[in-house]
């Protein structure tokens, strides 16, 4: 009897999980479907789900009008660069907070997080003027640094949480065996925290990939990433939903594929603390 209830509950849980999953995924699915419709079918009322003449015309138009590869390359450099740079800075910071905490460690952690509470537009002009002065407007370097700084509090917090799960005695043993601080972090701590670091890398790569305030405001031609590519297909006068959907699909496809292949790693990393 107990077994039957468990099975029924399992089925129910599965059904609820699938429903929530599909609800979350539906806007993306709808965007992908719309990208294969004509503009007229895209706005049809009642909406057409699958029964329409599928066309690649929107993708052809988008590829013809925009240099997709240039936008994609910029996104890869900006998201990848800012994430890697962030982790390089955050690993030692998180190590010191987790293993040699001071009286102010908690306060510093909270203060770091509080920088996320300022609306980005509040510092648009200072940052813009700084970029002009440094000659870094429309440059990938500026965006790598800015997005790294924006995501740094999250990276430090995540790594701090993972590091705290690692017993300090292991590091102590390494020290007793003569490991230097560099060796301790690089060869003892980092390998043990690989799932955590991997999920931090992935999550921040996704956050940087989707960032659409600084990437739109600090770029024009040379450093414009995929967010600028999407923005160029939104129109105030005229219905270009199908083309906009095609552009959006092309912009999210790489990150969607990356997320798909690394979901095991991502989930393991995110639940690392919970299962310990």
């Amino acid at each position, binding site marked *: 009897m107990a077994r039957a209830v468990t099975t029924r509950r399992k089925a129910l849980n599965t059904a609820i999980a699938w429903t929530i999953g599909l609800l979350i995924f539906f806007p993306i699915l709808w965007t992908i479907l719309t990208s294969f419709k004509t*503009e*007229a079918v895209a*706005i*049809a*009322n009642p909406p057409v789900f699958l029964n329409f003449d599928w066309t690649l015309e929107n993708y052809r138009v988008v590829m013809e*009008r925009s240099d997709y590869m240039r936008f994609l390359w910029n996104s890869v*450099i900006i998201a*990848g*660069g800012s994430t*890697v*740079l962030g982790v*390089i800075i955050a690993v030692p910071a998180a190590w010191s907070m987790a293993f040699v905490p001071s009286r102010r460690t908690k306060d510093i952690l909270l203060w770091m997080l509080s920088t996320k509470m300022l609306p980005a537009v509040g510092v*648009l*002009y200072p940052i*813009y*003027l700084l970029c*002009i002065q440094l000659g870094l*407007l*429309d*440059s*990938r*370097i500026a965006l*790598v640094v800015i997005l790294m700084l924006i995501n740094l509090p999250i990276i430090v917090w995540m790594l701090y949480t993972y590091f705290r799960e690692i017993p300090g005695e292991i590091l102590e043993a390494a020290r007793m065996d003569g490991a230097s601080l560099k060796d301790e972090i690089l060869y003892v701590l980092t390998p043990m925290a690989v799932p955590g670091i991997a999920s931090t890398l992935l999550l921040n790569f996704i956050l940087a990939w989707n960032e659409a305030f600084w990437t*739109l*405001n600090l770029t*024009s*031609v*040379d450093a*414009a990433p995929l967010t*600028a590519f999407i*923005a*160029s*297909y*939104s*129109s*105030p*006068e*005229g*219905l*270009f939903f199908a083309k906009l959907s095609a552009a959006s699909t092309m912009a999210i496809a790489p990150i969607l594929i990356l997320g798909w292949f690394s979901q095991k790693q991502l989930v393991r990393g995110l639940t690392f603390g919970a299962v310990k």
Partner: protein
Amino acid sequence: MSLKRVLGASTALTLIAGASLAQDTTITIATVNNGDMIRMQGYTDQFTAETGIGVEWVTLEENVLRQRVTTDITTNGGQFDIMTIGMYETPIWGANGWLVPLDGLSEDYDVDDILPAMRDGLSHDGTLYAAPFYGESSMVMYRTDLMEKAGLEMPHAPTWQFIREAAAAMDDPDAGINGICLRGKPGWGEGGAFITVTGNSFGARWFDEDWTPQFDQPEWAEALNFYVNLMNDYGPDGYENNGFNENLSLFQQGLCGMWIDATVAASFVTNPDDSEVADSVGFALAPNSEGVDRKANWLWAWALAIPAGTQQADAAQTFIEWATSTDYIELVAENEGWANVPPGARSSLYENPDYIAVPFAQTTLDSINAADPTNPTVDPVPYVGIQFAAIPEFAGIATEVSQEFAAAYAGQQTVEEALEKAQAITTEAMEAAGY
């Protein structure tokens, strides 16, 4: 190691890109994603072949573009050599010295051919600061088949009272047809623009000559009550969320008897590829309330301007002269037909028999001519602009006011409450700004 590579590669690429830019003159143009603008991008190669000047396009969504170019021009960022701006920004930016005056245009360009209403709206103190690429007003678009079925005939210049009668006659909830579709979406350029011109056509105005807000006057109450009653009776559900694109979609699917909006929509609703009602659309001037000598039509132009911070003003002017010339219009007509040329900018276009044969051309011209940005309301006002007042504070105030109005459209408050709040918001903001 990988970071070094990443940074090294990006620095090298930046340097290479910089070096190649230094070899030729290349101008960067910020623009919006409108059909005419995208079409122009397709002809850029011809411009480069003729002049040797390369062109880089930065196409952005309208609000993003506005924020982007405003940041750049106020900080002298120099990111763009040409900016696509509208009638609202041009006189304000021109007065601030942020734009290069277009007073040295060549004789071949024939600046006098620009429609007077457009030239006035894009000038400050008589100096032209932006050249119109295309211009628009607003007009009534209606279903000729439904009008005939209702036994009515649309006059060339209808009144609001006739529009209401026609909406009642064409409204058919069982068939899903709304008598009329109008903008209600908050935002100064969306529902805010529409309700402002509706106010003009009832004798209302934003400010009196001393900059005192006028929402406590009976003309505003009459205008807003008329609009709300009309839309509640014969408009689509949730009209407070509808802007240009939403109404375009409804009209193209045959779900609106009438739609009053930008003249540029005429080419969309008559295009058989996208519109189910392409063969049965008629056009008329925007309405006015009986006895009021102002119509509910606006005036807008997407225009090309040169920011003062550019290092390539000469090349930028060469492009502007090319893109807004009669030769460009003929180039588009030759390749894509007269219905697809950028409308509303030049007088000579409307003297061309090929163009005037396009069904909506004459009504578009009449609508533009009926709009006077220097004299937009029945009673005198201290500002220039029809659907806006060309002062820097207007966009913020009007967006807030349109949100209050939208709350009244949604039934969350009464018209009287919305007007009271509009008066308070505007009074406070204008006092804070020192008017």
